[in-house]
């Protein structure tokens, strides 16, 4: 569904992504792990159109089997094509209510019936959101905000959901719950590209993974294989045998 080839991205004058290539197949959960500063957020922002690459391509296969070059489309159009980005730090609109945040997520949609169904579905997945529908998003706890951010991304009825460090700053119990929910979302047909510093949980959830180190992909393959890899173990998994 998504194919990135030799992507080079600069942020200001810093050379962040030095030519990475990766693929996400339909229905998969793919993880992108790496340390701080490796370029994970930059990768996601380039996919969703907030940043433009210096060189390289991002090919996306649409519902109708068309191939689009995402690196040439504006961010709004990319969302319209079914790519939903749940940003780093959640990025909920603190001054808007929970319901309004979800409305914002569905900004491009006009089908009232579909919207109502999706709203129901999001409330099923995250019942706490239904409870707090009229509260301002800023008053939610970290975990609730994370759920709101994911729910909001789902309101766009995406085919590809990209998540930037959903576990950031959350207690392990909540992280586990969120990742279980992500598995469920994937089971319902949404492809997921997940960026995480928390390598253990990411590798647990995903089918395949890429390891990003200072702007380059150093390792890729099935998540179970990567989790066993010696170098990865030492760098990201605490060096403990699994």
């Amino acid at each position: 569904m998504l194919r990135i080839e030799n992507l080079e991205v600069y942020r200001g004058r810093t050379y962040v992504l030095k030519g990475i290539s990766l693929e996400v197949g339909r229905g998969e959960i793919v993880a992108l792990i790496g340390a701080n500063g490796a370029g994970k957020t930059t990768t996601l922002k380039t996919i969703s159109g907030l940043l433009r690459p210096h060189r390289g391509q991002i090919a996306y296969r649409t519902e109708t089997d068309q191939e689009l070059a995402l690196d040439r489309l504006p961010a709004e159009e990319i969302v319209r094509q079914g790519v939903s980005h749940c940003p780093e730090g959640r990025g909920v609109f603190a001054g808007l209510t929970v319901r309004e945040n979800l409305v914002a997520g569905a900004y491009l949609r006009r089908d009232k019936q579909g919207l109502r169904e999706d709203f129901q579905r999001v409330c099923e997945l995250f019942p706490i959101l239904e409870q707090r529908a009229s509260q301002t998003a800023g008053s939610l706890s970290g975990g609730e905000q994370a759920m709101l951010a994911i729910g909001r991304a789902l309101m766009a009825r995406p085919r590809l959901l990209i998540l930037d460090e959903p576990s950031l700053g959350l207690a392990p119990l909540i992280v586990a719950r969120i990742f279980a929910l992500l598995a469920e979302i994937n089971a319902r047909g949404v492809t997921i590209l997940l960026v995480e510093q928390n390598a253990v949980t990411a590798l647990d959830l995903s089918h395949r993974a890429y390891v990003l180190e200072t702007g380059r992909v150093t390792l890729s393959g099935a998540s179970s294989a990567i989790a066993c890899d010696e170098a990865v173990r030492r760098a990201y998994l605490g060096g403990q045998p699994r």
Partner: protein
Amino acid sequence: MTGGYITQQIVNGLILGSMYALVAIGFTMIYGIIRLINFAHGDVVMIGAFVTLGLLQHLGWPFWLVSLCVLAAGAFVGLSIERVAFRPMRGAPQVTGFITSLAVSIMIQNLGIVFMTAQPRNFTFPDFLQQLLRVGPVSFRVVDLVIMLTALVLMAALILLVRKTRLGVGMRATAENLDVARLMGININRTIMATFAVGGSLAAVAGLMWGGKFGQIDPLLGFVPGLKSFVAAVIGGVGSIPGAICGGYILGLAEVLFVGLLPPIYSAFRDAFVFGTLILILLVLPNGLLGKRMEDRA
């Protein structure tokens, strides 16, 4: 100092405040969405006043048509200012945006002088608006009543727009976090343009009212409303629409009441008292009445 006198002063203050509030709303909306001060906002007021003068007095068009044209003119000028002065400045430090809009304001004022000379023009509304009404101890002209009611209607419409419509959600989302708003598929350019257009329309209508209230207009008339809308918006908390409304009314009331209620020798000190009060408000509420706390960044 009778109750009737005080009520009269309060009514006068509210009428003045209505105009300030209308201009302050547009100002604060623009600040809220792009974090830049639009100093040329006051000049949209001036343009509204002159459009009214031209269409109403020189061409003799009916009042309702003139009002619609004023709304359209305001939107058009607002959009032009956005395109020329603000889109190239997006992301620049705040003072830079302030200076660019100040430059645009200077240009508009001086173009006005070049084309229309600095001579003040007289502004006369149709007679039925000039009639005096009496309600108990308070007297005012019909035009004053129209000003208040129109202002209230427009403010209500605006709040509905911002709170209940999809565009309104888009505007508020963009104001909170521009990048994340883009991730929702919100077209930032169009949302910002809409903000400038709405703000401009309101300011232009305020210009129509200003001409009617003060009877005289000139190309430099925009400076005062521009400054006052800045002050009113800041007092209310920049970026907050209800704040701007409150700020506008507070400013209007303060201006009138300080002159009306203090002994005459202090009248000349009016501006000092008004600003003194405003500074006191800011000392107690450093982010304005309804502004968001700026320390929450960490």
